[in-house]
């Protein structure tokens, strides 16, 4: 399974990763719709929030809409999800946007790492 890795010392806060993520999944470069978060810090390293695909959220979903895909990443079945937001409250790696009913999360597709100009984001194979 591939997991997103972050090297804080290389991040320049360009937000290419978030724009790319939003574009891949929602056809718009709107970082509020990205499935990962880079928070810029003054006089400190930037912070990264991204899913490690631990799967603890699977049991949290009352509808049984969260499952692990064949590639190991955890995702939401939009057909089953009713948009209750319990996963969003349970784990900060779930995201939602008022434009969409269903919450969403990182699927370890790697598009963000490929758009990273400094190599701060990489995909590492684990497990």
């Amino acid at each position: 399974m591939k997991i997103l890795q972050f090297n804080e010392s290389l991040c320049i806060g360009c937000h290419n990763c978030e724009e790319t993520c939003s574009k891949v999944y929602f056809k718009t470069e709107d970082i509020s719709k990205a499935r990962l978060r880079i928070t810029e810090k003054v006089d400190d390293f930037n912070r990264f929030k991204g899913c490690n695909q631990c799967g603890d959220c699977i049991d949290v979903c009352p509808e049984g809409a969260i499952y692990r895909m064949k590639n190991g990443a955890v995702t939401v079945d939009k057909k089953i999800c009713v948009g209750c937001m319990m996963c969003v409250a349970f784990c900060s790696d779930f995201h939602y946007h008022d434009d969409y009913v269903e919450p969403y999360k990182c699927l370890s597709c790697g598009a963000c790492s490929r758009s990273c100009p400094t190599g701060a984001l990489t995909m590492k194979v684990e497990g």
Partner: protein
Amino acid sequence: MKILKEYKYDFTEIIHGYNNRSLKINLSDMKIESKQISEEMKQKFVGGKGFGLRYLWDAVTPETKWNSPENEIVISSGPVGGITQYPGSGKSIVVTLTPLNDTPMDSNVGGHFGPLLKFSGWDALELQGKADKEVIVYIDGNEGIIKIMESNIETIDSHILSEELTEMFAKDETDKRNYSIVSTGSAARYSNVAMLNFTFYDVKRKKVRLKQAGRGGIGRVFNDKGIKALVIKYEGVKSDLNNPANISKINRAGIRFHKEMNRYDDEQNGMRKIGTANIVEVMNDYDLLPTHNFKFGSHKDIAKIESKVFIEKYITQNIYDGCWHGCSMSCAKAADDFKIKTGPYAGHKVIVDGPEYENAAALGSNIGVFCPETILELNFYCDTYGIDTISFGTMVAFAMECYENKVFTKEDTGLDLSFGNIDSALELIHQIADGRGFGKIVGMGIKFMKKYFIENFDADPKFMFDIGMEQKGLEFSEYMPKESLAQQGGYGLTNKGPQHDEAWLIFMDMVNNQIPTFEDKAEALHYFPMFRTWFGLVGLCKLPWNDVTPHSNKYSKEPAKMPEHVQNYVDIYNGVTGKNVKIDDMIEESERVYNFQRIFNIRMGYGKRTNDKIPYRSMGPVTIEEYLSREDRYDKQLKEIVGYNLTNKSTEEKMAVLREYRESQYEKLTDAVYKRRGWSKDGVPTIEKLKELGMDLPELVDIVSRHL
């Protein structure tokens, strides 16, 4: 099944929580019609219970009885009902004229029916008339088809019936989640306290679950109308189906609340572990747990039925138990694979919903049963037979006290009804379901029993009225109001009878001493009943309001009101409807419906001061045994508050003085509450009050004018 009537309808868009139309089905002539809902109807009655009461008023006359064909059962959720982001948003309110005294009854229930009804295109469902042959009413909310079918199903009891119907209608396992069934059970054929079960499909357990519209005998009306079941299907539930005006407000409030549950539930109430039964031992500790027909407030054997026992031995942990989508409070707990020992399902392994607090107290301490397995078995049979657990417990407790006082004997009834007799309690429940033996009498409710015992067993009427814990025909729910004047008002000064859904003030009054004066109590008996009424207008459950406490409450001037959660409700209500209301506006919305219901009661001959009196058992010690059990407390009150010299006084003398004092306190409280609510001394809403609320409708003014 033979189709007796089919009706096709088109869909209209839900706008800000409303379809703006309701469905009326008359079972006598099989007429099905769509009715428009006016802006005025929404403005004055909001939805849910408000719509139910308005439709019922229009359907009946002052002469209508519970079993008259024109009586209706109305089911409605409310404008907020069906959102999935905020806990407790799937309630239905059911309204009918109750067999207990032929006045309007309302009962709220979880399960999926109400929201699915709305998403199927209908803000309310009116069921009127009586079918010649037993029918099933099927609503397909995706196809836009309603069918009335002649039932060919022999099963009567809810736990099997609702499973059979789900299996019969759903095309596969995945489809089952789209169904909700409404049914009752065997007891509905005979008992005045029969209730309705509303289902939801538990996708984790792969089982049909039951939630109850418990209070007031609505199941009996359902059965009398010849309805076997209501079946609804709607596939495609999502958080935006109400077409909310501002989904952002709803999302944010929901996530905020879910986080609070994650953070605080384990250290606070443990609602996700055991639901409302978490307070069994708390009530016992504060001497508030009804024990032996409300004689006492605690019992030495409490450890046998405290919440820990159910958590550790019976109730499945770490599984989602919400009765509507998105309820992170998840209190609809269940005991899986529970083996039944008696009755027609002996040997079956079943799923038992609960026990909720009320069930543990009603089926446990109040009838002297301190056996968790008996509580669960009674709970199971109450549910599947369609018997209200609260009324069952309070009725049996009354019968047991009568038996212990030799009002009747074992020879009269065939049963040893001593407190705590497990075999007799179980036998009684089967008798109620079959309408046989002494169970047939008990199943008619305490109001009926009192009269029956006076007429047939020569019982002392005064004693019957003192210990029979009913008012307006409805049995008391399971809190001891004896030492809390405010809670006596919370039970007595209600519309439908002594049920804690209007005001639960015991802790504010007794434990925290937050409402010491009559005026304070009257204010609480205005605000809380109105605030709680509002939940029933919009389709919400009350529990998430105060069964977890937000951090901000520590700094609140009015912690009992839970201001942060009230703000959540303002947000989600405005978020759905696009209104811009504040809490005061919500209280006023409730006041309109509350006063309407009060006048409806008066119209039916049952809503004035004389009907707000409560049995003395709920106010003070009826017997010497009770007085002596709290002698220090009562002596102290007589000495310090009443100023009574106790020297050389017998217990009987002290009891008489205490009674006079306590009854006068209740009268003073009644005066203060009526004044605060804008009612006359006789409990009739004044015309000025109706004008102030914009409820000076001619039909209301006509009623109150005759009583002012």
